[in-house]
């Protein structure tokens, strides 16, 4: 990993996120009107839909980061891609749970197969659940990064294709009257939705940076510790060079 400073701007970003989330909740509860048919439960829309959009955006962004990793051969991009997928999977669980609650409240069933967005999301979620098993069953770290990136690119391309397929299958039997986030939302609802979407995006970016910072710090710490342990034995002979050289020297000395 290169010396990218993932922590830069993290505190300002965190404050912005807290403000945006507070603003979004305030708008959801005090500003947005109650839905005429669904009543209060419709408010879950302001959590569920932004979460789904941000999770899908995270999956696609991870694909782009994976392309950058393969092109530039810079491992830090693989780390970015990995953290983006990891967070999107966590958001995905939230999407499926809030989706099920909303479906139960407004249609009476925990799961409905004729809601193409929800079904497509489940398929995408199942695919990405294999990312971690695939990644961690490859031992060589360099190959692990490469294979994980190939997966991220293929799966990123799969997301839109899958949505087309499910949409086509549904359009066949159930003509779709209005789209989920379409233009027929009243003004107050749309403003609230956009603020909620912005807040969710900020939350994702903050968590992403936070995890990258922590992973980067852990990695640096591990390297320092290795250097410290080796340096304690070998310092007089091998001062100034990296930790690899003393390690090789130690190995040749013991054999």
């Amino acid at each position, binding site marked *: 990993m290169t010396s990218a400073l993932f922590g830069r701007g993290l505190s300002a970003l965190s404050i912005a996120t807290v403000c945006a989330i507070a603003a979004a909740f305030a708008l959801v509860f005090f500003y947005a009107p109650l839905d005429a048919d669904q009543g209060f439960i419709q408010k879950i829309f302001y959590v569920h839909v932004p979460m789904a959009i941000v999770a899908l955006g995270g999956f696609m962004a991870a694909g782009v980061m994976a392309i950058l990793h393969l092109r530039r051969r810079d491992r830090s991009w693989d780390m970015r891609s990995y953290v983006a997928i990891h967070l999107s999977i966590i958001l995905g669980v939230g999407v499926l749970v809030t989706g099920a609650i909303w479906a139960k409240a407004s249609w009476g069933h925990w799961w409905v197969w004729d809601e193409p967005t929800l079904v497509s999301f489940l398929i995408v979620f199942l*695919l990405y659940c294999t990312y971690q098993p695939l990644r961690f069953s*490859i031992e060589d770290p*360099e190959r692990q990064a490469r294979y994980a990136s190939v997966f991220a690119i*293929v799966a990123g391309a799969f997301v839109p294709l899958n949505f087309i397929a499910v949409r086509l299958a549904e359009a*066949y039997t159930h003509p779709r009257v209005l789209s989920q986030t379409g233009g027929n939302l009243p003004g107050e609802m749309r403003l609230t939705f956009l603020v909620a979407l912005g807040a969710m995006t900020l939350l994702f970016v903050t968590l992403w940076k936070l995890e990258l910072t922590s992973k980067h710090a852990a990695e640096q710490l591990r390297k320092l510790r290795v250097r410290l342990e080796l340096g304690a034995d070998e310092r007089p002979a091998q001062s100034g060079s990296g930790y690899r050289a003393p390690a090789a020297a130690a190995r040749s000395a013991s054999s």
Partner: protein
Amino acid sequence: MTRTALAILRKDLRIELRTRESVPAMALFAVTVFVLFHFGLDRDSLDGALAAGILWVTVLLAAVLAVNRLFVVEREQGGFDGLLLAPIDRTAVYVAKATALLLYLLMLELVAVPAFALLLLGVDLLPALPELVAIMLVADVGLAAVGALVAALAVETRARDLIVPLLLLPLLVPVIIAGAAATEPLLTGLQTADGLGRWLAFLGLYDMVFVLLSVGIFDFLLDD
């Protein structure tokens, strides 16, 4: 590149002809799954959506077997080292493997579709055969493109047998959606190929995306 790909393909087909490992296993598996569905559903004859779904699910599950085996010879007998040492385009390896998988799938369907018609199908398949062949050909290209890529991704992992189905089956959901939806009207006995063109177009798009993507990306899987 074509010559290299042909040479690798010829080698794979020769190994398959001599060991008879993949295709007979796939065919046997498909017939067994039909028997399972007969007892599981307790139905003697099927038609319509149920028949189309069972046919496609069986083909997809049988494909998993071939994908699991696709790179095993290379991995276990050191063939990868030979391929990597040879001054050849890596893409040729992918093209050869995908073509081999495509041929295995076609041979599987040559057995599985008549067996399905004989054992489970309640309607006459013959009038709808040209449409079915067209759907299967287009779907098999996508299956082979994705299958060869997944096989290469999974072959270096510790848990290859687990990773392949978990990775392959979600990626093939669009194929089963389009394949089953396009096949369904053919198996109802009414000869109206409703919406066939649209599903074929979608399968064509799927094939194109994954063939181009795999060709572009495969280099990185054999890059050491």
